[in-house]
């Protein structure tokens, strides 16, 4: 059993670490209780008639069935109550607004006292600092879940929910939508990168500048096929808001909200046949797109770093 990048046991956040410890404690307790109950059944069935009397039986059900569970459950509740209080957030903490869309993630970093940075399908958090996620939904219910970092919080249309986290170690991880949201619910994931604070600051500053855009045939094809109606690319006049922001697309590790590695073949396939890759996605298929156009667009997208 090797924990993958999306496991509640491969932790990199304070809350998830606590929950992993709590899980093992509760599992241990549950195994003991289940074993004791099973053993009592075996003994009860094998013991001769009248092994306990009516009074003994009533005492057994009062103590073992009523009193002991009450004490155990009360203790469990009291010890876990503090964990229901979220990590305290300060006014100066980094805020990240994540909006769930069918079937991708709109991500907007809002550091205190600096301009916001808009991106998609990848979430980066600084290690050791408090990060506040403001979670919203664009269309239907979604749920924001990074098992290694913290528990999940639903994204509800008309509401903004908050999740406060603190990453404890750097690394690449994965998150996924946990609330059923339609055809491609299974295909709505995202990359998570926990970075040392200095590296994070540098990365965010770099993202604030537009990518070095090459005005080539790919860019013209991108324009001609109307991609800009939905997608924004910083540093160009492409400013669509319906689909994911593509400004630094090539700097992400995966494509299509965490479901395919960022390769040219995958870029070409997704560009032309998004509904095949992600059933129910709002991006249409471009069946008439020539091979040349598709390759050119993919090459151009690969320059957006």
């Amino acid at each position, binding site marked *: *059993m090797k*924990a*993958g*990048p*999306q*496991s509640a*046991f491969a932790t990199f956040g304070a*809350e*998830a670490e*606590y*929950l992993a410890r*709590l899980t093992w404690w*509760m*599992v241990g307790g*549950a195994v003991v209780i*289940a074993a004791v*109950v*099973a053993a*009592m*059944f075996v003994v*009860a*069935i094998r013991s001769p*008639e009248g092994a*306990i009397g*009516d009074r*003994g*039986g*009533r005492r*057994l*059900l*009062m103590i*073992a*069935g*009523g009193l002991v*569970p*009450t004490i155990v*459950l009360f203790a469990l*509740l009291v010890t*876990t109550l503090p964990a*229901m*209080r*979220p990590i305290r957030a300060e006014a100066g903490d980094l805020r990240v607004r994540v909006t769930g869309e069918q079937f991708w993630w709109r991500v907007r970093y809002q550091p205190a006292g600096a301009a916001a940075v808009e991106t998609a399908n990848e979430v980066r958090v600084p290690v050791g600092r408090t990060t506040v996620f403001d979670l919203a939904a664009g*269309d*239907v*219910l979604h749920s924001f879940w990074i*098992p290694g970092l913290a*528990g*999940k*919080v*639903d994204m*509800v*249309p*008309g509401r903004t929910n908050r999740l406060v986290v603190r990453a404890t170690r750097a690394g690449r991880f994965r998150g*996924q939508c*946990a609330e*059923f*949201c339609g055809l491609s*619910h*299974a295909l709505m994931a995202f990359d998570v990168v926990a970075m040392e604070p200095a590296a994070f600051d540098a990365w965010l500053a770099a993202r604030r500048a537009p990518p070095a855009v090459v005005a080539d045939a790919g860019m013209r094809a991108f324009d001609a096929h109307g991609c800009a109606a939905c997608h924004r690319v910083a540093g160009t006049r492409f400013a669509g808001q319906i689909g994911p922001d593509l400004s630094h697309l090539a700097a992400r590790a995966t494509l299509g909200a965490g479901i395919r590695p960022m390769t040219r073949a995958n870029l070409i396939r997704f560009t032309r046949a998004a509904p095949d890759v992600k*059933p129910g996605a709002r991006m249409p298929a471009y069946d008439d797109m020539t091979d040349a156009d598709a390759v050119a667009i993919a090459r151009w997208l690969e320059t957006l770093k």
Partner: protein
Amino acid sequence: MSLHAQDDPQLRAAQEERLRATWKPPQGLFLRWTDTNNNRVGVWYTLTAFGFMLFAGVLALIMRTQLAVPDNDLVSANGFNQLFTLHGSMMMFLFAVPMFEAVSIILLPQLLGARDLPFPRLSAFGYWSFLIGGVFVSGSIFFNAAPDGGWFMYPPFTTRTDLSGLGADIWMLGLSFIEVSSVAAAVELIVGVLKCRPPGMRLNLMPLYAWYILVVAVMILFAFPPLIAGDILFELERLLGWSFFDPAKGGDPILWQHLFWIFGHPEVYIVFLPSIALFAMIVPTFARRHLLGYPWIVLAAVGTAFLSFGLWVHHMFTTGLPKISLAFFSAASEAVAIPTGIQIFAFIATLWAGRVVWSVPLLYAVGSIAIFVIGGLTGVMVAIAPFDWQAHDTYFVVAHLHYVLIGGTLIPLFGGLYYYWPLITGKKLSDRIGRTAFWFLFAGANLTFFPMHFSGLMGMPRRVFTYPSELGVDGFNLASTIGAYVFAAGVLLVCIDLALSPRRAKAERNPWAAGTLEWLAHPDDEDWGIRSVPLIESRYPIWDQKDFVRKVDEGRFFLPDAEEGRRETIVTTVLDARPLQVLRLGGPSWKPMATAVALGSVFILTTYHLYWWSLVGAVATLAMVLWWLWSGTAEIPEKDEKPIGHGMTLPLYLSGPSASGWWAMFITMMADATAFSGLVFGYFFFWTRHEDFPPSGVGMDGPGAFWPMVALGVSLASWAATVAAREVHARGGVSAARALLAAGALLSLAAVGAGLAGPWTTGLEPKLHVYPAIVWTLAIWTSAHSGVGAICQLYALARSLAGRTTPRHDADVRNITVYHHFLAITAIVTYLTIGLFPGLA
């Protein structure tokens, strides 16, 4: 009749001949389906629910096959969504709840030594509704039109017609229809337990299964109506574009989650408690002693029922609730484990104290408790909110709920099947096949669901049609799939055992040597249920009461005859079971079936937007119901009373609070009031969600105070006229009562107009915002009830004019008064809320 009259074998034979003729089932290709006897209807019901269970199980197998390996493409995303939605919905609505009701319809009269349930035709109506609705919902998958929004149907995904198609309507309307039949069966079972017990069976002598039937039926009564209220709002949004869940128009998807889980959590205990009830029958039989801690078990069952209504929010821990509600609902969810612990330890204590006779039913009981305990312990884990934030909506929860439902519903039912098969068919099932099947089921369930704890916590969410290999859960999923087939093999073995049964010889009577009343059943069963209705002095009369079986068989107890050739059973008092009445029961009739068809057409035609046709169906339903009531209820008997043996004479007609019909009306209206309170909850829920509620603007200012107050005034006047009619009628003032009923009907009709006039004259536009939508909903609900109130009053008037209601035989007037009490409360709450609350707020 003297004490020794029954010594005469010829007299007994003549009685038996009369009973046999009276209870003879209808024959013929069509007519046999008009039967209403609980033995027949209960068996149809059980077989149908069993069939739906097998169907839903096959759906699960297809899902497990798709998930056997990562990135599989056996089933499309769309197909998979239909599969899991239908699997969950069918298992809950078409198997677990109906199966409880079906088994209870078979067993309850036998447990209570009654000839039949108090309303046999209502059972038949419930069955036909269930069959029609169930086929409609489950058949949709063959047309690729099955619901695909999950069994929880969360909006806005499911209310947006561009995202979810006909399937959502099929779910809402098809299952609403089944919910109606579930509530009908619940009414039947509650009245059965409370009013049809044999003389002497005080509440504390009732078999535990009957206690659980009572508790669970009451839970159904209060749990299903909030969902029906939610269904109404849901379809108003989907079909008419009214806003309840769309935040752009002031709605909130969370309201649906509340209404759904106020139903959905009690639902879990609704399907689990009947299994405890089966254990409570099986364990004492094979421990050869009384169940230990009877009062504690009853208290625990009632406590579980109460608590189960206070912990629905634990399904919503991740929706961003205030921390205080997290703590409260975590605590309540933990607390429900305590009564469960008491019930399980009562079985351990009983086995410990008794002399255990090992048997297949006991094997199933003990094995399923072992599985259930694991599910209960993971339940304690997910009840802790912070842990739930990780586990929620992952395969961990899939594991948890299947441990609970397989250990707490499915395997106990198989155990019950092995236990009660001889009662129903007179034949035993095979011990050998039963044991083999058990081990397949036990191993299969664990192999399927234990690995899911790990796949869930390792990052696999629920309701995904595929998963990538990088999660590291491939091995767990393959194990789950293999386990699912092992489990299916166990189910197949049980089916083979059942199929072999017709070829086997009859078993002896009471083959398990049990002590409870239902084992009076004879292998060559007669349709009359019980030869004579016994006097009960013990919880285990066959063990404890001297010569009990012989006395029953020789007709030495009550009502050993059917002199007038009418189907009859004894009605007793609620608490101490003193005999009150000989109740004449409805016999075979095609009307229940026809009414179910008519009502089903309303729901099904509405699904396809054929509104005019569904209106025709609604009128036909109303006509059928009235005809059914007119021809089959509150019949004035040919004589006032009849002897039932032992020098006791009972009246044949009762009205008011001692009559079973009055209780049925009262209980039905409790369900109705619960649905109404769901709508009122909606109004105030939206008030807490908005700074400006009611909002102002064109189409949103209303309904004003004037018309609601007028509506309230005439509603109360109509109520007063009804109560006055009842009173003067009882004192012989027939003409005055008729005048009051006529006036009451006019006032009720005026209340319909005045109720709708408020939102109508102020131009409230329900498509604009949630406020006008919820005001219209409350106004329409209450006005529709006033309309039905007018029909009730006219019905009672017509019965009086036709001579079918007299001052001494006044059940009609008394029962419609119960309706009008509830209508008055509904009117007060609605019109004060929509008329005066905006001024306060």
